[in-house]
């Protein structure tokens, strides 16, 4: 079964910032759990990312508007604990 079709088994909140937490923050700002749900909903294979940093560059929201993100870190330390990390 493809991982995108799986539902998460558990959820925890991030404690420290990392590249993965930054990308999760960006997906959750756009209204998705993580990259798996985004690919499942939007039926795309790849997500546009900044080549220099690897962070997500552009996401299409459920209402078909677009969110653009900066090349550098956007998730501040005070927002890190709000980021949810899903475990499959």
């Amino acid at each position: 079964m493809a991982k995108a079709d799986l539902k998460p088994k558990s959820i925890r909140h991030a404690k420290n910032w990392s590249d993965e937490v930054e990308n999760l923050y960006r997906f959750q700002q756009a209204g998705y759990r993580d990259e798996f749900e985004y690919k499942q909903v939007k039926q795309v294979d790849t997500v546009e990312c900044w080549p220099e940093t690897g962070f997500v560059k552009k996401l299409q929201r459920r209402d078909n508007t677009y969110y653009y993100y900066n090349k550098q870190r956007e998730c501040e330390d005070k927002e890190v604990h709000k980021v949810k990390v899903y475990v499959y």
Partner: protein
Amino acid sequence: MVVEKAAASPPVPVGERRPQKQEPLGRKKKIRQQVTDGFTVKALMKNSVVRGPPLAGAFKERPTKPTAFRKFYERGDFPIALEHDTKGNKIAWKVEIEKLDYHYYLPLFFDGLCEMTFPCEFFARQGIHDMLEHGGNKILPVIPQLIIPIKNALSLRNRQVLCITLKVLQHLVVSADMVGEALVPYYRQILPVLNIFKNMNGNIKMFQTPHSKRRRKDVNSGDGIDYSQQKRENIGDLIQETLEAFERYGGETAYINIKYMIPTYQSCILN
């Protein structure tokens, strides 16, 4: 023969005569001075004090005019929507930025730099940021159309607009290749206002002297803390950063052109 004058007062006996009034020693006779404007006949008189020249108004803020950005925004012509998130506000684009016509939209967004009220000010600032971040080689051909909006924003001499415009200029020169060099021919339109505010590193207060009102810089904020440098709102520092960015990304002729408009500027590359 002595002719007595008619109605003359009777002679006063010697013992009752009062001494003549004399000025006390060391005290000069008071001369009434009059304050007058310069280059008049009155100014040539000995007892006149010439008033100083009136303020030219170099630092005075100009009134804002209605912008094309506001007109288009109220009509709903922009493909943007406002989203509220935990950090504050964010722009959601209805159309992909890569598909936008930069010749049409980018000058309009730059025209919104003159705005000072929410949400126009936020949309203009954030829209410019997004378009410059994702524009790539579409930005260079539009540079000539951006000069007039930048000049209009700077000429308002409003502190908030100045800070935002300077940060936009810094982003503009690094947004794509050759943009810094493309700006060099337009320095004579952009830099004069920067020359005026280059030394503004503190708060401006009005001091009234006896003969004229003059504005003087006052960096003495008592026991308060000056957060303007931390928040990147110190205009003098922002101008210095912007000029250094111009010099770094403007090519070989950038420094001499900056020096022509701002003679006190010191190179950050040559020194």
